[in-house]
């Protein structure tokens, strides 16, 4: 017979968790360093360049911060949104699809509503994006609560349907297709009119986009929403046990549908802001935030502050690898994904070590 068995540790210690995480991340960076070294790249130089996102000795360092923020904002909002649905154990992996439909809706407004002042146009774009994404999420939630349809698989299918929809819009040269650049013979997505492109606050040369400010406000709002409101409490009860929630007289179906609407609408908002900030859309407008957001939400243990910190770190990892890749020809920006994968594997292991412990069988019997 086995002498040892696994037991859940009683009580979560944040300190222990952080130490285990740190060990895990260090080991992954070590593996990454070995990989870099095997390519003949000095890992310290590479990591140094990556972690400082190429700002050291760069006259245009503020440009790099702007670039980092452009990656960060959609990732942050999407991760927060996905975390909201994961809290109810609702496996919405449809961030990509919800983001894409939001971006398409924002573009419809941007191309067709002209002559309005800029803030109003962008507001309309965001509302359109939030409504379309929110309704898509609501539909998935409806099927889940009414017919117990597998939400993971449904949202997965929707991701690809939306991807091919936007590809279709970007590749079809027809008279009705207002998404395309009319001047180009080759089908490419057109540039939004000036009034639909987001501006920001100038701080010296640095341009702080409004989307960054909105994202920060959203972090605070969601934190309060989850921690201090009735809705937030309901979400956590449903996540712990739907049966308990039902017994306590909560309308579980309504809570799930409402939360999914909010969660998807937030992803729509991320899409609207991203489209407006970049002034156009494309098949790669999501920058994979729908997928990465799932990992970020999970790494952040579905806690709002932790998700915020994790998304900053992942954004630095991605943007840093991108800037570092320009220096080293033998490696491309996909190295970020490789490293991200290794980090997640080791953090999942660290997570396990922090929650479980080995105990001798005899001890358990007593």
């Amino acid at each position, binding site marked *: 017979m086995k002498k040892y068995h*696994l*037991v*859940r540790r009683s009580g979560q210690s944040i300190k222990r968790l952080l130490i285990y995480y740190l060990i895990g991340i260090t080991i992954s960076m070590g593996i990454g360093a070995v*990989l870099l070294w*095997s*390519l003949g790249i000095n890992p310290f130089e590479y990591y140094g360049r990556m972690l400082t996102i190429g700002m050291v000795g760069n006259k245009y360092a503020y440009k790099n911060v702007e670039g980092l923020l452009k990656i960060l904002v959609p990732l942050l909002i999407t991760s927060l949104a996905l975390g909201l649905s994961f809290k109810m154990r609702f*496996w919405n*992996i449809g961030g990509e699809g919800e983001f894409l439909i939001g971006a398409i809706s924002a573009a419809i407004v941007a191309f067709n509503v002209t002559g309005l002042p800029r803030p109003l146009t962008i507001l309309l774009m965001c509302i359109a994006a939030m409504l379309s994404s929110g309704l898509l999420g609501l539909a998935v939630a409806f*099927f889940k609560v009414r*017919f*117990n*349809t*597998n939400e*993971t*698989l*449904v949202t*997965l*299918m*929707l991701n*690809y*349907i939306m991807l*091919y*929809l936007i*590809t*279709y819009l970007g*590749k*079809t040269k027809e008279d009705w297709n207002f998404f395309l650049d009319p001047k180009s013979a080759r089908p490419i997505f057109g540039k939004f009119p000036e009034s639909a492109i987001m501006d920001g606050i100038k701080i010296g040369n640095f341009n702080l986009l409004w989307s960054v400010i909105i994202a920060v406000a959203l972090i605070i709002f969601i934190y309060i929403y989850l921690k201090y409101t009735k809705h937030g409490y309901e979400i956590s009860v449903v996540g712990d046990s739907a049966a308990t929630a039902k017994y306590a007289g909560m309308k579980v179906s309504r809570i799930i549908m409402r939360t999914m609407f909010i969660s998807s609408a937030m992803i729509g908002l991320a899409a609207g802001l991203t489209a407006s900030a970049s002034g156009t859309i494309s098949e790669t407008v999501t920058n994979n935030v729908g*997928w*990465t957001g*799932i*990992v970020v939400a*999970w790494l952040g243990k579905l806690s709002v502050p932790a998700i915020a910190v994790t998304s900053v770190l992942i954004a630095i990892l991605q943007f840093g690898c991108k800037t570092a890749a320009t220096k080293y*020809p*033998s*490696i*491309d920006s*996909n*190295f*970020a*994904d*490789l490293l*991200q*994968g*290794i980090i*997640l*594997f080791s953090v*999942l*292991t660290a*997570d*396990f070590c922090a929650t*479980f412990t080995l105990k001798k069988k005899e001890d358990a019997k007593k």
Partner: protein
Amino acid sequence: MIDVITLFLFSIVVYNIPLLYGTAGEIMIEKSGSLNLGVEGTMAIGAVAGYLAGMRSGSLLVACLVSFAAAGLVGAVFSFLTVTLQANQNVTGLTITTFGVAFYYFIGNAVSNSPSKWPALGGSRLDQQFAPIEIPLLSKIPVIGKTFFSHTVLIYLGIIIAIVMWFYFEKTVPGLKLRAIGENPGAADSLGVNITLYKYIHIIIGSGIMGIGGLYMALNMGGTFEGSNCWINGYGWISIALVIFANWSPAKAILGTFIFGFFNTLRVQNAPLATAFPNTLGWLTKIPAQFFSALPFIITLIVLLISSVRKNNNSCEPSAIGRNYYREDR
């Protein structure tokens, strides 16, 4: 005209058999109650490892074994994380996909930039072994002979794997036990089935099968590494859809592969068909390619919705899918 039809049917089989590998592998994993969203990444790792090993050794058998082993190793990581460490299956699977595709680019770039360069398939010993095998007599039947009986060994192998797997699930005791784990792990555990062992073995074998599918993809696409496009090209995701469409049956997966393959081939070959039959099939060129690409996902979505609305009892979706089993959690 008959040539156009033959080529069309032939293309369905030749370009879409990786779907069968991916689907069969995923069915095996899902039958054990695990949802592995890492098909795309597992296939990518199997492809790149198998291809490079095959080019170095000059043997298709070695290529297959290495891609099976490499992808199986990925399956072992997935099992370790989700079965032993109780990690979330969705997150682990998605990470395997990101990791696997990134691994493909990493190895591809590293080898391409090395002094020995990326090995080219054309004219190599591996390429010769990947030549079609004409089955005597059967391959002489018009249309059908070319479509079904003049293929490379990996195509026959894929179909054999699916049939053997069907037999394994339906007619053998371990297959029955596996299905029990997927339906109700608690009950299977109480009957003395070693759940951990069963899950590990089947996840590893299922992943290995996906890996061979990836290798086929690499060989069929001429084995050239492009820095911007992964060989697997979304086939892993279509495989996940196909599992649902095939209702978790490896036998139906063969049929499903040809149905999804039919749409896929329509996208590629709409022009020759429209030219050969201008009156009846002329409309084909008017349908956007993206519609055909999206069709597998649209059909699967409809299947998912309808079968849940009708509370379809015929659905063979394993009840415990996606949830980890921890004995002391009951």
